[in-house]
């Protein structure tokens, strides 16, 4: 099987996990999760050098990933479980009492694979910069990845971090934005237009790669390029053009599924569109 085909099969199972998880607890955020599935699959199953068997907080010698838009925890948990950080059966506990799989990711219950709590938007890139600076102090040649939302770009802290990463040459940092054009109150372009994001980050001193974040080939090629261009003085940003709800036809093209769970019938319709490739949890 080709690598692309293999990654797509994993992504299909992750998408099944996502809709089943939010359906089971009747809450959570499927839209952004489905849109970012291809990117996280490519990162965790192809690009990142990681040791899921023995999770260590410090991750010395490993690539690190931080989820800044913590509400898309369903995709993050599914990816971590499918990659072996913890047993997939635990996905069934999502958002339930005494679960390690909290509504938003946290280190508080010691879930392997999570290095920072998130949920309050806008904070992840700062943490990623700190972790990237720690890697430099440790002479560690691995990379630090962080994913943010496009609505999240409205938070001022993101831009404090963007100035810092470029101004201090944090060139082992690879950020990404889930550029799906949607947020809670509607299209980003209406709620609070971001202008030309690519030009803005470039003006700050970043290398920016616009790409289709739902095209697996494009994603892995761009990640490869980013690793090649690391350690050359500039932070890098992947501007992932994605579809919120990607993979489930009735969840695409609207912000309705940002934070809404499918009912039984909608679950059935969604699962019919997503092949079970690795076995449901």
């Amino acid at each position, binding site marked *: 099987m080709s690598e692309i085909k293999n990654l797509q099969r994993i992504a299909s199972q992750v998408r099944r996990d996502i809709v089943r998880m939010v359906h089971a607890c009747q809450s959570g955020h499927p839209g952004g999760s489905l849109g970012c599935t291809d990117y996280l699959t490519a990162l965790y199953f192809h690009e990142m050098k990681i040791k899921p068997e023995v999770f260590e907080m410090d991750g010395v010698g490993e690539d690190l990933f931080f989820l800044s838009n913590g509400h898309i925890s369903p995709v993050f948990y599914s990816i971590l479980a499918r990659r072996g950080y913890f047993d997939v059966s635990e996905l069934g506990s999502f958002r339930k009492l005494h679960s390690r*799989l909290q509504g938003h990711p946290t280190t*508080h219950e010691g879930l392997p694979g999570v290095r920072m709590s998130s949920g309050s938007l806008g904070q992840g890139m700062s943490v990623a910069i700190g972790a990237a600076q720690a890697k430099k102090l440790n002479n560690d040649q691995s990379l630090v990845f962080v994913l943010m939302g496009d*609505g999240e770009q409205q938070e001022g802290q993101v831009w404090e971090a963007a100035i810092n990463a470029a101004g201090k040459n944090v060139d082992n940092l690879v950020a990404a934005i889930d550029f799906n054009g949607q947020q809670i*109150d509607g299209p980003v372009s209406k709620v*609070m237009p971001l202008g030309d994001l690519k030009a803005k980050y470039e003006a700050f001193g970043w290398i920016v790669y616009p790409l289709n974040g739902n095209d697996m080939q494009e994603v892995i090629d761009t990640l490869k390029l980013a690793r090649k261009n690391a350690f050359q003085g500039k932070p890098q940003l992947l501007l992932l053009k994605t579809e919120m709800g990607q993979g489930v036809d009735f969840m695409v093209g609207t912000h309705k599924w940002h934070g809404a769970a499918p009912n039984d019938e909608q679950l059935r319709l969604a699962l019919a569109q997503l092949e079970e490739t690795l076995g449901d949890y």
Partner: protein
Amino acid sequence: MEFKIQNYQDTRSGFGAGLYEIGKLNPKVVALCADLIGSLKMDAFVKDFPERFFQTGISEANMIGMAAGLTIGGYIPFTGTFANFSTGRVYDQIRQSVAYSGKNVKICASHAGLTLGEDGATHQILEDIGMMKMLPGMTVIVPCDYNQTRAAVHAIAAFDGPVYLRFGRPKVPNFTSETEPLIIGKAQMLQEGTDVSIFATGHLVWKAIEAIQQLEKEGIHAELINIHTIKPLDNEAILRSVSKTKCVVTAEEHQRNGGLGDSIAQLLALNLPTPIEMVAVDDQFGQSGTPEELLGLYGLETADIIAAAKKAISRK
């Protein structure tokens, strides 16, 4: 006294209804929201008064600063977002641009406390009352149901000064009078009694009503007072009640540190030292779960108030 449940409604809907009404009554009322119009129930205001509504996107610090600015020129801004992002996220903006600058901003905060439920601890702020009450000049109001939240919006619109208004997400019993105004700083007597004074706020007022009804069956006559205004505290009403009952229970959906119980303990320690039991979260973060599960797990249920009352009485 009988407490009749008129219906089950979320307090945030009381906020939305009140905001719409004062928007109609007073053209100086403006509203701001940071990408949570639906969650804050601000839709009606947004629809009918679009020119007086400011969507700030996900930028709470900017929203608080803008609200402060809007007061300069005579407007009365109401900001809307979740309680965590209304306080913790923007504490210094509130401190400097609103409180210290003495600006007439109404910080309206939904999804406070554990009863936000499944979103989990990142969103379940339990420290907001403490942060807000520590700011000099800040008024802190925590209404107990839909009607009272609606009344609170009218009251704070008419009041000149910065206010923190805290409400929540789940549907809870709506039992206060639809026509009774909220008087800022004036505690609400719900049941007179002699054996113990129970001071409750927010969602725990209904739990306390259930508790006093059970206690009554056991022959314990509890006094129940709704402290909807945490600051300024109604010292007089509290001291009057405690002089009579000689023991106290406080109940709130907040950390014990910095909450209502802490304010009342301070008042009593300085004026009338009295045994006090506090029903509150004990120095912990919350977690995901249903509102009822969480109230049970963190000791904020009717049974916890009953147990606290008995313990307080035994310490007299």
